[in-house]
């Protein structure tokens, strides 16, 4: 590829699309066309840009050298005051970027025909969000990272607050404030690190030895941000509200990508930069992970709202990510990265699945459903597949992440492994109960009498996720080969550093 700045291209292509849509729409004004038509045009344009971004990220995948250590495709431009515009990727960021560029077009397709208000602004919000998300995963400078990390909040805040459900204001503020509160601590830490180390270059900071007591504070500050993002118990309560109020596409991106920033942050910053503190806080992280898994699974079981149930399920499944990361073993860390990718696919699919019936019946109440299999057999089959993937059935990607993170944890603490394994039982309870109440049984609600099975649009959105979930379930090495170097590097810094 020569010196073509592929990372910059991938990162800013969606933003360029957003600007173009904005310019064209404001330039043409409302000459003759109604808002809906123009909105549809914007959505189509947004779709083209996000699809192009996905293709560009595939170029990135091809250019990536699996066995090469360190960061690749690095681009570096001095910005100001020693802060650089520096991008680069390793295996972990590569896959998270791919996940982002895959889920964004899927979200836009899913919005087609369901979002009717201000579609132009909606599309722009998603494209802007995509740029910030990609930026988070490839920023090689701490300040640049922070800019992307925080900026990403705004479009998501708007998506929930404008296109959300009835309680969207409460939910979006709760989301915004929790995450902002967390990241302010991180900002303070970043400023301090920059002042002490004299640089905000991540590759330099990785090898910079902060004094142990300093590490503790810095670790806690980063933890505040990542724990909220992930989310971990007890700062998880914003997530169910945000999901319930967010439009389907917002939930897909929120669960699929935004939560992953927490796990990514722990692996990219906490472990390499604060190895001693990470070791020190291992018991706390294990405890919080296991609590998240068991607690959220039990709470999920009692939910009456489909989206809330899946939101709590997300909290539980992200618990496996932190469990694996803080096992400090190759199996655990590889499993954690895999779990992030896998959860991105599965939770994204589950929110799409809820969205499909929400679009048809306009309620998320579990009790309003029942007997869908009689009317929607293909839907029932797809839902079954992802139900099983979510409970970690071997052969789906859900299993690989769970068994590896638990195996990693077993090496560090048998208590943690046993606690997490307990959560695996409960996941079967809430998912099978949900499935039974919505899909099985006779049709009792008259509103479901004329419900139609999945259509072309639904299949377009869900098929890539079906393929991904099964493919990664059967040959997870596709992921492990790419992430091996980054996992080993993070581990080397914590055990060897």
């Amino acid at each position, binding site marked *: 590829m020569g010196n073509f700045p592929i990372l910059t291209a991938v990162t800013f292509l969606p933003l360029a699309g957003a600007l173009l849509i904005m310019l064209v729409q404001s330039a043409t004004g409302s000459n003759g066309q109604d808002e809906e038509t123009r909105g549809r045009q914007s959505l189509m344009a947004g779709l083209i840009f996000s699809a192009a971004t996905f293709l560009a990220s595939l170029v990135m995948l091809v250019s990536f050298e699996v066995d090469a250590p360190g960061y690749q495709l690095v681009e570096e431009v001095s910005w100001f005051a020693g802060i650089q515009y520096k991008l680069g990727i390793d295996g972990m960021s590569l896959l998270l970027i791919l996940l982002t560029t895959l889920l964004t077009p899927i979200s836009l397709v899913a919005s087609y025909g369901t979002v009717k208000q201000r579609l132009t602004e909606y599309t722009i919000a998603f494209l802007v969000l995509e740029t910030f998300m990609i930026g988070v995963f490839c920023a090689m400078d701490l300040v640049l990272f922070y800019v992307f990390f925080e900026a990403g909040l705004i479009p998501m805040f708007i998506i929930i607050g404008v296109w959300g459900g009835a309680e969207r204001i409460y939910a979006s503020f709760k989301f915004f404030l929790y995450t902002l509160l967390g990241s302010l601590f991180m900002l303070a830490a970043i400023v*301090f690190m920059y002042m*002490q180390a004299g640089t905000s270059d991540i590759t330099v900071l990785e090898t910079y030895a902060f004094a142990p007591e300093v590490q503790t504070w810095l670790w806690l500050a980063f933890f505040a941000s990542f724990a909220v993002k992930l989310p971990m118990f007890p700062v998880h309560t914003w997530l169910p509200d945000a999901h319930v109020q967010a439009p389907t596409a917002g939930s897909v991106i929120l669960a699929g990508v935004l939560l992953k920033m927490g796990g990514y942050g722990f692996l990219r910053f906490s472990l390499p930069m604060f190895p001693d503190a990470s070791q020190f806080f291992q018991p706390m992280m294990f405890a919080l992970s296991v609590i998240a898994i068991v607690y959220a699974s039990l709470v999920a079981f009692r939910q009456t709202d489909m989206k809330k149930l899946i939101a709590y399920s997300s909290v539980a499944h992200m618990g496996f990510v932190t469990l694996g990361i803080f096992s400090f073993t190759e199996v655990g860390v590889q499993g954690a990265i895999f779990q992030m990718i896998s959860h991105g696919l599965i939770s994204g699919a589950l929110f799409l699945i809820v969205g499909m019936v929400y679009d048809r019946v306009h309620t998320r109440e579990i009790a309003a459903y029942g007997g869908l299999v009689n009317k929607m057999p293909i839907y029932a089959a797809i839902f079954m597949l992802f139900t099983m993937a979510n409970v970690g059935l071997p052969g789906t990607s859900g*299993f690989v992440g769970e068994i*590896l993170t*638990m195996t990693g944890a077993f090496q560090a603490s048998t208590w943690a*492994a046993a606690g997490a394994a307990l959560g695996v039982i409960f996941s079967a309870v809430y998912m099978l109960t949900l499935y039974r109440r919505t899909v099985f*049984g006779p049709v009792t609600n008259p509103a479901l009498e004329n419900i139609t099975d999945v259509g072309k649009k639904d299949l377009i959105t869900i098929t890539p996720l079906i393929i991904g979930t099964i493919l990664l379930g059967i040959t997870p*090495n596709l992921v*492990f080969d790419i992430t091996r170097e980054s996992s080993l590097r993070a581990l080397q810094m914590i055990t060897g550093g």
Partner: protein
Amino acid sequence: MLPDFALLFIVLAPGLAALIAGLFQKYVTDTGAMVITTGTVGLAGILSIIQLFMFAFGGGVVEAVHTAAPAAGDHGAAVVAPVQHIITLLTWMDVGQFQADWAIRVDAMSIVMMAVITGVSGLVHLYSWGYMSEDPHRARFFAYLSLFTFMMLMLVTADNFIQLFFGWEGVGLASYLLIGFWYTKAAPNSAAIKAFVTNRVGDFGLALGIMGVFVVFGSVEFEPVLSAIRENATVTPLALADAAPIRELIVPFLGYNVPALELIGVLLFIGAMGKSAQFFLHVWLPDAMEGPTPVSALIHAATMVTAGVYLVCLVSPIYEYAPFAAGMVTLIGAVTALYAATVGMAQNDIKRVIAYSTCSQLGYMFFAAGIGAYQAAMFHLFTHAFFKALLFLGAGSVIHGMHHEQDMRRMGGVAKFMPLTYAAMMIGTIAIIGLGIPHTSFGFAGFFSKDAIIETTFAAGSNGVSFGTLAFIFGIVAALLTSFYSWRLIYMTFHGPREDSIPPETPEVDSHADEHLSVDDHGHHHDHHEDPHESPLVMLIPLGLLSLGAIFAGFVFYDSFVGHHQAEFWAGALYNAADNTVLADKYNVPEWVFWAPLFVTVTGFLIATFTYFFNRGFGAKIAASGGPLHNLFANKWYFDEIYNATFVKGTSWLGGFFWKTGDKRIIDGFGPDGVTSLVRWSSRRLSAMHTGYLYHYAFVIILAALVFGAVIFWRVGGAG
């Protein structure tokens, strides 16, 4: 062994058939799906049975001995690397030392299992042509059956614990789908979830066991793990403990220091308890009878539920050096054998009687494995598959002929309408009670395998193996009860006058009895006064073939499985420690031990004949009298009630508590909502401030951030 392409066909073709029948049912039609699945599994069955015969009586044995000889080494017969052939298909997971492949491993164990699985499955497929002929979802049904077959084959041909777990959970999925096959009804749905979740409780143990294996041995593949135990190699655990010879290795687990092999043995057995419906985790099996009867025969009698026994036998080296874990296997097995038999005596649903009988027979297999007679356990697994599938399919034939009646109290006198089914059920009954004459070759299949278990268990008890004597006593008593409830079933169903006028007594019984009634309209009229009719030929052929197995499987394979040729037959796939001689000692037990099973069997037969043949109504009188013992048995020792009151209610309560009190009241109450109301309260006081959430929050946040930042700078500055 068969050539590779045939092995690949046996294992993979059923999976492919399931995919075609399931995904393309619109194009292949119901009949197409039935032909594809039945043809594939049937052919796999024929190939597997040929392979078993080749292995037991043909060149397979010779080849096995030759290959095994060099591996025997200096340690004598005790350390024999198993003769096996592994076809690696694809790398599954490759993460550090965590290496698992998709593979097909063929050894004596998997050859036996492949024959049982594909043989019974082929017949069940065929039988379902008749039994399910009126169901509107036949393609889906046959797809599930073939999917199950594929998963079960993946389980028994795995060469590592992870693929075993894949098959293990995969059969659980198929079982879940098939129990809940009639998905519009409440009872099958509940039963399906109960089965899946109870199995998950077992899998909790299995998964931890596998993690334990990995951490201790640094591998999840069978051969490195098992050979390390056979050779007492020094292993270096990845964590938790220092290197030590494996049989002496102690690891910490949940605060206790326990021998590694005991820990792994107990955890793996918890998995086996779930899958094989052993005491404490047995509650799902009787409810699983909500599924269509061919499913009960295939999954919940002949194959899936034996996976636990298979697992324990597969890792026999672990239990050989884990006396506590082995003792637990023996104890749980013996208790289950007796417990399930007591409950079986008091059930009125024909399928539930057979379900408890299955539970009880699985208990026999487990205590045989627990005392170290893995060969006898596998032998009973093998013969049991034939006669239990026969009994279930026979019961299905009765249910089909009786227009979906399952309550034996409303049967009676069926023999004259269904003579062939009657004959098959008689053969199955004689096989399960194990009728045969000691020291001769006259006996049905169950005679050879059950008596092998009784004799080895007595020998083990005499050798001082823990719980050996208890298992022997329980086994003998359970044999008495087995004979009683089996004949009770025959008499209530086939003999006496037709008792179709008795109305259903309890709603519970009724809910099982009308198995397809509500939605799967199938043309049968629910007129119970209509006479029963004999089943069609597609259902009778499987009964006939299984009858042959129920009669001859024991006699034909005795020498190979547990007799004088067992070492050549198993070719190292099962392992007995040097001091474990139960298999040889079974020839030297006192004479009365040989005759005891026959004695109790005849006694059970006589009691049943007295109470249910000559004095019909005597049993009903006992039931009506409501004695405490009868109530205990009829209510399955109140397990469901106890579990409901504790685990089910407890989990639900805890979920509600965490949600309403944990999340809402405490976290949100003191967190965001608390802050909001605090700010609102203070802003009312300082009424000059703007209203609106954002400013308040931002104020609080910035204040907090400043304080935090100040603290950091102060601390760091102080530290220099």
